[in-house]
Each structure stands twice: as structure tokens, then as C-alpha cells.
């Protein structure tokens, strides 16, 4: 709040009201409903529900399939974050360094940001198409038969590749703007002290980029967890079957296809807790960083 402000009661309430109503109806009510129904067992034919306590959660943790999906989500998140962050960092460092063409490279490397994940997934289907996709044919040169949608690990690899491709641009934009905000004087001082480019990068540039990198880490984890839904739906063509899927995809499959409302809600609540933990962790680390700089 500003020190100098208007003293009125009516107007600000009217200003806040639309946002609060929308949030109340479409955010808090559903969220509370999810928590509530995670403790109930809903009759599949809609004849009421019974309170079952923590049974839905216990059922999830005991389910081998849920654990398998959780493990896949973890690995998937790790790989996508690692590959898209490191590729974007290399590209950003190079784009910041070259004297000519920085703007052109920036355009060429960032426009994929605007490609919707399900469309990216569809392109992935074409690129890895069984039998005649370009990547499938390329891998066949090495004697590997890539079978998208049939082989569990092949499908998983395609998912990681498409998600990484789709998410490099965001990381690139943030890294590049982080690099460009490092003062010229710091770069010159580092240049005088140390002629080795690699050393200069690890001793000066990387620590200065660390806040950006940490922030991006959280963004990437959130992306891999939630925003990949459309991409996965495209790659498995809406038929999960034996294919890998993420936790969010399972919420959808169990809730809308399986009609298991209690189990789906319990999964939602687990995801909510996960996001809250991530956010608290983010604020903690950010706070600590502010203290010592």
C-alpha cells in the first residue's frame, strides 16, 4: 500500500469485488470441494457418498500403478528440467557473447514459446511416427527400432524430447535477460583478472545467474508437472493404456474416465500439497538469498 492514498470505502470494495467473486466461485469453492470429496467414497451411479476418512489416500499409496506414475513423473520432471535448462543456458551464453545477430538468434530461439503443448505433441507424433517418422528413420540407421505408443520407454523418451523442445524458449529468454543485466564493468573486471573463458563463466557469470537459475528451476518443475498435459494427451492419442503418464494426467484419467471421484480428489489434494511445499521452499531460499547479498 502506498503512503499517500485515497480515503474511500465504497470504491475499492467495488473494485475488488469482481476478482474476489471469480476467485471464490472458481478457485476456493472447487479447492475446498476437492479436499472434502477426497475423504468420501462416491457412489459411481450418483446415489450419495460415504465418509471413508483417509482410505482414499491409503488406497493411492498402496496402489502399484500410482507409485509407478509418481516415479515416472519424478524422472520425467528431472530430465525435462535438466535438459531444457542446460541447453537454454548454453544457447543464452553464446547469444549474449556474439557481437552480431543477438536479436536474430533471440527471435529464432524463442518463438517456440507460442506453440501450444498439444500441438507440439502432435508434431512429436509425426516426427517419431512408427515406421516413417524422420527421427524413427534416423534411429533405424543405428539399428534401433523406435516404437512410439508401444514401447513404454520409447514413448517416455519422446515425451521428454517434446517437452524439452517446447520449454527451451522460456529458459532461454530468462537466461539471456539475466546475462544482459550483468553490468559491463563486472565483465571487464573479470576479463582483466582471468583470461580463461570457462573459469570466468563458473566464477563470475554463473553465481550472478544463480537467482535466475533457481527461479527457473521452480518454473520448470511446475511446467513439467502441470503444463505437459496436452503434450502427453497428444502423444498417447488420448489412450493411456500401457503408456507412461504424469500425476496430473492420472487425475484426469481417474476422475473423468474412471469416475473415481474420491481417488481423483485425493490425488488433487496431494498435488496441491506438493505445489504448496515447492512454493514455501522457493520463498525460503529466495529470502535467504536476499539476506546475504
Amino acid at each position, binding site marked *: 500500500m502506498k503512503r499517500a492514498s485515497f*480515503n474511500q470505502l465504497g470504491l475499492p470494495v467495488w473494485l475488488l469485488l469482481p476478482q474476489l467473486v471469480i*476467485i471464490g466461485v472458481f478457485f476456493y469453492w472447487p479447492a475446498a470441494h476437492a479436499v472434502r470429496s477426497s475423504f468420501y467414497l462416491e457412489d459411481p451411479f450418483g446415489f450419495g457418498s460415504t465418509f471413508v476418512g483417509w482410505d482414499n489416500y491409503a488406497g493411492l499409496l498402496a496402489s502399484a500403478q500410482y507409485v509407478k506414475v509418481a516415479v515416472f513423473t519424478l524422472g520425467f520432471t528431472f530430465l525435462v528440467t535438466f535438459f531444457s535448462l542446460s541447453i537454454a543456458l548454453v544457447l543464452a551464453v553464446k547469444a549474449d557473447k556474439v557481437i552480431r545477430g543477438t536479436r536474430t538468434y533471440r527471435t529464432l*530461439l524463442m518463438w517456440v514459446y507460442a506453440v501450444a503443448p498439444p500441438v507440439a505433441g502432435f508434431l512429436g507424433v509425426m516426427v517419431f511416427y512408427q515406421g516413417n517418422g524422420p527421427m524413427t*528413420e534416423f534411429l533405424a540407421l543405428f539399428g534401433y527400432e523406435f516404437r512410439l505408443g508401444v514401447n513404454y520407454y520409447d514413448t517416455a523418451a519422446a515425451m521428454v524430447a517434446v517437452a524439452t523442445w517446447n520449454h527451451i524458449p522460456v529458459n532461454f529468454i530468462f537466461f539471456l*535477460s539475466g546475462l544482459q543485466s550483468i553490468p559491463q564493468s563486472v565483465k571487464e573486471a573479470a576479463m582483466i583478472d582471468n583470461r580463461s573463458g570457462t573459469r570466468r563463466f563458473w566464477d563470475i557469470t554463473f553465481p550472478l545467474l544463480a537467482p535466475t537459475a533457481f527461479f527457473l528451476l521452480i518454473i520448470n518443475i511446475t511446467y513439467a508437472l*502441470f503444463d505437459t498435459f496436452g503434450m502427453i494427451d497428444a502423444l498417447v492419442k488420448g489412450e493411456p493404456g500401457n503408456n507412461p503418464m504424469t500425476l496430473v494426467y492420472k487425475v484426469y484419467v481417474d476422475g473423468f474416465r474412471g469416475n473415481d471421484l474420491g481417488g481423483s480428489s485425493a490425488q488433487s489434494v496431494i498435488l496441491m500439497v506438493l505445489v504448496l511445499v515447492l512454493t514455501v521452499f522457493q520463498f525460503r531460499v529466495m529470502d535467504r538469498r536476499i539476506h546475504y547479498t
Partner: protein
Amino acid sequence: MTVAAAPVLVSRSRARRKISWQTISDHAILIAGSLLMILPVFAAFMTIGASDVEISRHGMQFTDGSHLAENFDKALFTQGGFTGAITGSTMLLNSFILGIGFAIGKIIFGMMAAYAIVYFRLRFATFAFWVIFTTLLLPLEVRILPTYEVVHGMGLINTYTGLILPLVASATATFFFRQFFLSIPEELVEAARIDGAGPVKFFFDILVPLSRTMIAAIFIIMFVYGWNQYLWPTLITTDEAMFTLVRGIKQIYQSIDGGSDIPEFGRALALAFIAILPPVLVVVIFQSWFVKGLVESDK
């Protein structure tokens, strides 16, 4: 003098050569990266020029483009889907309605709420702040089923309201405008008050003109975000006349492994291209606003 100058010259030219090798490898890496980004979409675009038979036989390919016009025509104007009620141009229109409606909704509600929080002495301002900002934590995907039930209960299935409003229920724009309003010097409000301007006049005559760049930036980000929505439109639109492009492509590529007929590859690829084009153009054309908005809003 000349004798002394010679070694300097030599070392300088040697240094330049060393740098140029370095520069070449830098450019090589950047070009490889750019190709990685461009090739999948370019290959898809080239393949639109082939017929469905050719595509199902050879996959993605470079063609003479003889079927390009035909495939785009099919994608935009031929009716498809199960009920045969939807054409690509209807989906294109729906996508624009979703993208623009979502962006405008976000900006209007966000600016109003941020103005109230920053510029008014309110007892419950801190409370309102936290109520609004908690929404940043939980994406729609997490609470998708109960939200669907709420919207279903309100009878908003297959309406633009039901499509757009639940997506607006998060605080990204409010947060963004709050940060920006806080960075505006306080003297402006004081001066405005001394001149006798009320809150409404101050908002429209001073704050809105000052926020023009920010509004543009957030409009671009939100437009792309809205255009690219998939999960929510998939659930909320069962009537094919309400499909957006991003949602509608699914209908077509689902047929790829489905029936015994040759799948409509050309049509699906053309639709994918149409779905990609508008958001990419917006991002590329308004690049500097977009980058500024993206980098500053998330800090």
C-alpha cells in the same frame, strides 16, 4: 618506432584470428539451436503439400506443394468432426474469442483489484491481498474435477463464459499490476490530490496512460496463454461448434490410428499450422514488449 610496432601488430592479428575461430563455433552452436527449434515445424509445413496417401506412406517429407492449397482449404472450410458441424475457420474464431476474451478479462479484473490494493487505505487490504495471491499457487489442472462440477452446476457448459471465467480465476495479472503500481512515484498521487483529482480521474487520466506498455505486454502473454489452453476447453466444450483450434486438432489426430481409412494427415497438419501461426506472429512482432513483460512479471 616501426620496429617496435611490428610485434604488436602480429600479436593483434593473431588474437583476432583466435577470436574468429571462437566466434565461428559460437555461431555454429546458435545455428544448431535455431535449427532444432525450426526444423520440426518447418518439416510439418512442408508436408502439408503432400496428399494423405503420400504422407501415410512416407511420413514427413519435402514436397512440391501440389496439395498445399487443397489441404488448407480442407482444414479451413470443410466440415468435419463426428457431427460434421465444425470447420477450421469456426475453430479459428473460437480461438480468437478465447485468447482475446481471456486477456481482456485478466487485464480488467487485475487492474481493478491491483488499484484497490495499492492506492486505497483499506482495513482488509492485506487480507484481500493474500486471498488473491494464494491462487498463484494452484494451477487449474490441480483442481480440474471440482471446478468442472461447479461450472456444470451453473449450466455454463458449452458457453464462452464457462470457457473463459474459470481460467481468469488466478492472480497473475493482479500481481503484475501491483508490482508496477508500486514502482510509480508517490508524488503523482499527491499532486493529483492537490489538483483535486478523485480516484476515478486519477486512474483514467494518469495511471492507465502510464501503464500502456505494461498492458500491451500482459495482453500478449495472456493472449498466447489463453489461445494455447487445452485441458479446460477439452472438458468444457462438448459441442463441436465451440471447439478451439488447439482443442479441435485432437479430434483429427485421434483418427490417425483409429479406422482403416487413410487418416487425414494433411488436414491435421494444416490445422496445426493455423493453430501455431497467430500466437507465434504476436510473440515475434511484439517481441520486446513480450520479453519485458515475461521477465518482469515473474520476478
